[in-house]
């Protein structure tokens, strides 16, 4: 599904990713773990197509196509979704209106029929329930005045609504207490599917107790330095990043 080869990415002229390679297949959940500054967020942003992230070498192929050539909205259209670490607050746009606009934009891009306001409302309500998202929250301006946990739950609601083929979760656990973490993890687990790949980016092993990955990759200084099964996350937690980096060197 996703094939990253020797990827080099610079931000503001500074190289952050320095030859990162990674591949995921449909049905798999991969975790990318790394300390602060290792390039985790850069990887998620470059996959989503944010401006200012310059690919200076290597390639990203998604379902055999060159992802880098696509605009952010086109990537969403072909089934890529990034749950952001810091979802943006947009005053003046209600959450419900945003969900409807985004869902129908993606449906149009896929040549599917748009869903009317009532249909979207029904769909959103059904999915919001499991994530403990209230009607009141959906009426508020997008992410404005939302708590950290509410913002993350709204990201997962979008994941459930858009049903992407490739979901990237960037530090979805940050700022969540244990109850909120469980709600979010349950939401994500419910969306594990044979035709869907997930990339879970995290600093801590904690989230991976709830979203158990098939593969774990350790990112350090812009490269994957170690790969393994789910037990690698526990090893990291026990030894710490410094030791793993040292071992790998």
């Amino acid at each position, binding site marked *: 599904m996703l094939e990253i080869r020797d990827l080099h990415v610079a931000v503001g002229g500074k190289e952050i990713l320095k030859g990162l390679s990674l591949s995921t297949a449909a049905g798999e959940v991969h975790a990318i773990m790394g300390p602060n500054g290792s390039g985790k967020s850069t990887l998620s942003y470059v996959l*989503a*197509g*944010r*401006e200012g992230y310059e690919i200076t070498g290597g390639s990203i192929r998604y379902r055999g196509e060159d992802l880098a050539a696509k*605009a*952010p*909205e086109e*990537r*969403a*259209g072909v089934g890529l979704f*990034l749950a*952001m670490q810091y*979802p*943006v607050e*947009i*005053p*003046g*746009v209600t959450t419900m209106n*945003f969900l409807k*606009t*985004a*869902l129908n*934009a*993606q449906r149009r*891009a896929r040549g599917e029929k748009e869903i009317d306001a009532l249909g979207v409302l029904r769909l959103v309500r059904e999915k919001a329930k499991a994530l403990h998202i209230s009607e009141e929250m959906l009426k508020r301006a997008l992410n404005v005045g939302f708590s950290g946990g509410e913002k993350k739950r709204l990201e997962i609601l*979008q994941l459930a609504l*858009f049903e992407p083929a490739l979901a990237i979760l960037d530090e979805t656990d940050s700022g969540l207490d244990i109850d909120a973490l469980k709600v979010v993890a349950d939401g994500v687990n419910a969306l594990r599917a044979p035709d869907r790949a997930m990339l879970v980016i995290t600093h801590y092993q904690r989230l991976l107790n709830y979203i158990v990955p098939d593969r774990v990759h350790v990112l350090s200084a812009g490269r994957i330095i170690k790969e393994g099964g789910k037990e690698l996350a526990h090893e990291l937690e026990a030894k710490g990043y410094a030791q793993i980096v040292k071992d790998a060197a």
Partner: protein
Amino acid sequence: MSALVLPNRRIENWKYTDLRNAIDPAAIESAPTAAWNVASISGAGEQNDLPEIMPRGKHGAMAEYATSLAKSGVFLRVARGQKASAHLQLTQGGHGRALIVVEEGASLMLRQTSLAEGFANIVFDIVLGQDAALSHVKEAPMAANAVRVADYSVRIAPGGAYAAHFADFGAKLSRTELHIALEGEGAEAHLSGVGILGEGRHADVTTRIAHAVGNTQSTQLFKIIAGGKSRGVYQGKISVAEGANGSDSRQTAKGLLLGERAEIDLKPELEILADDVKCAHGAAVGDLDPESLFYLRSRGVAEPEARALLMRAFLEDAVAEIADEAVRTELWSRVEAALAELSA
């Protein structure tokens, strides 16, 4: 040679808007009397000829020309305790006068539109009696070659409430002056407006609010979007007279620049001579937030649609000031069309 001296940037009040660049003085002198059409009037609204003796408020320089050069005008009146709604349309430009009187305890919902495409210089006198209410929504359509100057003087008696929304979709030059006098305790003025300016447009809103007595309230919320090579101006001065304690005044003006060739000037001013007043003001000019734009695009919303959505969001609270739902909905449809044109 014309003897008229047009307001220009050397005059403090016209610092950002120079009429000399937009129109020839001779064209102003020879302009006809503007034509009005009362497109609809319902309830207890009366339409009359202008009275011999006009109540005169405070006006700016161009209003003097309108007053002396307009040969006729329109006069709408709602008698004491009555309710009415009216749609006033300017059908032909030139010099125009209008008088709106809402008597004690009466209320009027006034929509004002324009079909004029050239030069228009209109002076409005609006008088609100005790506890009278006027809801005034003015729409100036996009007219590439129009030069429109409008000057509103609004006098508000105790307990009177004036709520006005001014939407400007762009002209070669547009200047709107609002002189509001809160003359009695409990008088209120709530002004809001949006400006959507494309290539070659210039729009200037200048407000002067005088809290002449205490326990009066004014709010202002103006939003301007400037694209292409255009210029938006808001200058608002609030004066609180000596002894006008308990005055409450809020003023917000925000500008959104869509490119490097657009310019927005915001100039809030306060002149407070009383001790016990609440005054809050804020002004800010910015660009479309790139993070918001990326967020929307990453969710599949194409760039032009995402930009339009953010622009709509920027204007949201100003348009929401229009209390009448039908009028508000209609204005939104025009705002959205204008935004679509701007982002295309």
